[in-house]
């Protein structure tokens, strides 16, 4: 062993041990949640945004108090909670996390502390005709990805031909339902109540589609802490402290005493198992997800190709306007390019899909196509402008003396040479666009990365899904780069 390694090994070990021991020794219980989840789960206090409030905050304080520690919140995106728990980013995750067999198989999961019903919400006018998932054959039904409701929708897709539409948040499914973009939303009743309250004209069906439970999640090696947490939860169920928390947040109902009675009498509430959530080996899961990944890759490729075509056309028009147009046009186009380049693509997608929804309701795929196309057109236009200006002025003078009009000079002399110069950066941009197309999942388009994240969330690991996803992106981008190199070589011969 080299001297460096001899010193480094104990140091790394010390860091690992000390980081996990630190919170205990510091008297803190680090708990993870997503404050974007909003009330009643976890949200920034409207009167003091520096504080967080919600029933999960109260549950965390209850647990921390039982352990003799102080609760400290760690913000983690909802879809990353499982992975963050396994990594040890916090000791316990509490954020409306649903109990599932898959989750139990890979994490240390607490006993359930809240029972919820999966509720179908529809527009009030459709209340009579869309009562169950079977009534929604061929209709778009929204939910959050990687949830029990999503699994139920996948079953309904198979059995009834329902079209599942996944969202990244629980606000837009209901606003899109009100706008008519989807015909129903399937989510738990806590979210459904909030959705109906915020969007007039919606109504929730009373018959539950399924029943689920909220649990806390810990890293598998933290089973001992999980057992202590379970003891605290059982005591809180028996002494009414949990009831007080849920009453405070207006979530208490008749389902909870029945749940608590089963749990405190030594029983367990079995996780709701939709068939897609059944634990299987990673390789079985990979095979099961392969067709949907291939389909999602096809969507990524189609979306990227169409967006690039739009970007090339718009970019060429902008570049031509900037090089040949009168000053006011040049200034306006320059300002447009800077506006698009200076703001995030994610924001542009939100504005096109959600922001403009009151004016024009674009289908998600079209909105994604426009968002990516318009964004990349700004970058393409800069490439083309540079390429047009790189064609030697002497050739343009020769064309002028030969009698070519400006348009002929552009078409026959300048543009063909500019295209050759632009080809390499265009190829780069297409590969970048292929990867940026993953952002459109925020506006409900399920492309390759989104499908992979659903896959990863369901099996609780990113290793195999990530590798499969990477292989598919490479399979799409490498031939393109090769094709561009061949074309470039051919032109230079």
């Amino acid at each position: 062993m080299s001297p460096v390694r001899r010193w480094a090994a104990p140091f790394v070990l010390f860091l690992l041990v000390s980081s996990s021991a630190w919170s205990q020794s510091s008297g803190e219980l680090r708990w993870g949640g997503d404050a974007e989840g909003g009330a009643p789960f976890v949200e920034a206090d409207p009167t003091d945004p520096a504080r967080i409030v919600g029933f999960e905050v109260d549950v965390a304080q209850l647990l921390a108090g039982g352990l003799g520690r102080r609760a400290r919140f760690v913000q983690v995106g909802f879809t990353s909670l499982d992975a963050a728990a396994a990594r040890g980013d916090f000791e316990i995750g509490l954020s409306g996390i649903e109990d599932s067999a898959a989750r139990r198989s890979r994490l240390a999961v607490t006993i359930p502390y809240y029972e919820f019903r999966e509720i179908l919400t529809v527009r009030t006018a459709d209340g009579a005709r869309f009562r169950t998932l079977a009534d929604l054959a061929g209709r778009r039904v929204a939910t959050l990805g990687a949830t029990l409701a999503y699994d139920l929708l996948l079953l309904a897709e198979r059995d009834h031909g329902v079209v599942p539409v996944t969202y990244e948040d629980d606000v837009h499914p209901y606003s899109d339902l009100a706008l008519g973009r989807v015909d129903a939303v399937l989510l738990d009743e806590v979210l459904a109540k909030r959705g109906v309250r915020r969007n007039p004209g919606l109504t929730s069906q009373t018959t539950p589609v399924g029943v689920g439970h909220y649990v806390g999640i810990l890293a598998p090696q933290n089973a001992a802490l999980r057992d202590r947490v379970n003891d605290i939860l059982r005591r809180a169920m028996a002494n009414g402290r949990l009831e007080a928390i849920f009453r405070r947040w207006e979530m208490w109902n008749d389902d909870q005493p029945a749940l608590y009675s089963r749990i405190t009498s030594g029983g367990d509430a079995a996780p709701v198992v939709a068939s897609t959530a059944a634990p299987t080996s990673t390789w079985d899961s990979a095979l099961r997800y392969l067709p949907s990944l291939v389909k999602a890759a096809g969507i990524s490729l189609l979306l990227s190709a169409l967006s690039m075509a739009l970007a090339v056309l718009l970019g060429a028009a902008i570049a031509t306007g900037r090089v040949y147009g009168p000053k006011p046009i040049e200034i306006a186009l320059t300002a447009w390019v800077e506006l698009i380049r200076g703001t995030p693509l994610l924001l542009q997608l939100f504005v096109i899909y959600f922001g403009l929804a009151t004016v024009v309701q674009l289908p998600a795929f079209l909105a994604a196509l426009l968002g990516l196309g318009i964004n990349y057109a700004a970058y393409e236009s800069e490439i083309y402008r540079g390429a047009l200006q790189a064609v030697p002025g002497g050739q343009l003078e020769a064309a002028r003396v030969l009698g070519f009009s400006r348009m002929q000079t552009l078409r026959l002399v300048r543009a063909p040479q500019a295209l050759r110069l632009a080809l390499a950066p265009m190829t780069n941009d297409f590969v970048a666009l292929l990867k940026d197309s993953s952002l459109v999942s925020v506006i409900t388009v399920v492309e390759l990365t989104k499908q992979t994240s659903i896959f990863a969330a369901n099996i609780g690991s990113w290793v195999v899904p990530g590798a499969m996803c990477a292989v598919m992106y490479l399979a799409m981008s490498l031939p393109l780069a090769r094709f561009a190199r061949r074309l470039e070589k051919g032109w230079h011969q």
Partner: protein
Amino acid sequence: MTPVLEVEDLYVMRKGQPVVHGVTFHAFRGERVALMGASGAGKTTVLRAIAGLEPQIGGAVSVCRPDVFSVADRRDIQQVERTPRIGMVFQFHNLFEHLTALDNVCLAPVHVGGVPRHDAERQGTALLEQLGVGHRVHARPHELSGGEAQRVAIARALAMKPLLLLMDEPTASLDPTRRDDLAATIRDLSADGTTILISTHDAPFASACVDRVLVMHDGHVVQDGRPQQVL
């Protein structure tokens, strides 16, 4: 006899300053004229002004009346975009890099002259052969030697059947043998009736192939005569 080229009191402005002052001369059909003088004397600028490549000129330039340009102190460059019957061979040739030698020659006849492609290619091939580069029809500009590129550029200019051929420093990239060949080519062209105006430093070349020399100094024509009188 009516001159093919009439330059009357030509002024060219650069950044508000005149770089060519009141140049006046005529050239007749089949005449070979050299513009000579030190670097910066204004030779190339006069050629560019005649070709319509200088945006700020005053005076009048006409090629085989009616006037090529209207008389104006400041004119928009777009107005002179389509300059009829003038061919120009640039010092650095300015061939279209993405096209073969033959396509360089055929592009203007097809798209400006409206000549059917097949005819343009036949005429272009004949021109390239006549100029000794018939074996290079499919070569791209970067594959040509300086002399070959220049002959392709001459063929490109001649393909539009110009009344006036402007040549800017045509011997700059030629060895002595090629220079003699070029002088012979110029004599042949003028024998066919083309008027040729050459800007050059090269006195032996001018002596060998032009009828008249205009010597320029500091934007003015200071001498005008036969080569043996002036050189």
